[in-house]
């Protein structure tokens, strides 16, 4: 099925695209048909910069288990980052 379910958020990020590194301003997260991952559905993450056009995109297609593990690893890494560095990174 096409779930159409899509989470959208603003981000401050850089990502490596097919055209090299770019600043990214938006992200979408959805569970739908992957283009490459060999399953009917996958957890999809797109980092986008709409002002730079459709090709300003870095994409991930993850199994549900991998997506949860990645999310937990991200949160764990942030939770255990040295005190003070998070404020520096946010600036």
């Amino acid at each position: 099925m096409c779930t159409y379910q899509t989470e959208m958020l603003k981000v401050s990020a850089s990502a490596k695209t097919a055209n090299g590194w770019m600043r990214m301003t938006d992200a979408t997260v959805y569970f739908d048909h992957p283009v490459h991952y060999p399953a009917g559905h996958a957890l999809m993450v797109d980092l986008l910069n709409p002002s730079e056009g459709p090709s300003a995109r870095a994409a991930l297609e993850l199994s549900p288990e991998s997506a949860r593990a990645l999310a937990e690893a991200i949160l764990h890494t942030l939770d255990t980052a040295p005190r003070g560095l998070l404020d520096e990174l946010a600036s």
Partner: protein
Amino acid sequence: MTHNLTADTITMKGQNDDEIEAYLAVPTDVEHFGSIVVIHHMPGYDESTKEIARKFAANGYAALVPNLYWRQAPGASPDDAAATTRAGGGVPDEQLVGDVAGAIAHLKSLPGSNGKVASIGYCSGGRQSLLAGCRLKLDGVIDCYGAFVVVDPPSDNPIKWKAIVGEVGNLSAPLLGLFGADDQFPSPEQTEILADALVKAGKEFTFRTFEGAGHAFFWNDRPSYRVDAANEGWKEIFSFLERTVA
């Protein structure tokens, strides 16, 4: 039949006379032919959809695939275009209908056209094919596992489509519906609701629901492909086209 054909990327006029990209496949081994508008799935105007167009042409029908994402992402790769269009809220129904109308006109203008045109769509395109059949004059309509025909999509997402079962009274042509028994969107219960609505509206339709198949069983380079359902489905499609547009 030699299966000879030509296939090209062209420009066609869509909604509001906008010029959009399209892929046209035409049989070259028949003098006159019926035609079909191929509505791509949500993953976009991709290689597998163009392959479907060539299969129609190889079997004697002109096929035209409008790039529904051209406005949002001209020249982008299909996956980037699909991602951009999803983030932008999807293709509005009015734009889809206008683009299909343009495709119908283009197909009817081809030398060799017999003036008859059907539509087919896969996945989100299944719903859009049915929608086109309810709002435009077609000679045949094929819906391959179109979701959200009898129920609205979730409200908390950017794509603002609505169920279209209330429009089937305006369906302009016979309908062929091809579904998977293991699909949940549309589920067999949902296709039953659609069938009931078509009966009440007095419309001609044929539904086949294939056991052992889920969503996207025609998609032959993805794990959802089911060879038996797809082969039977293609037989149903060509039998339907023989009855309606040949």
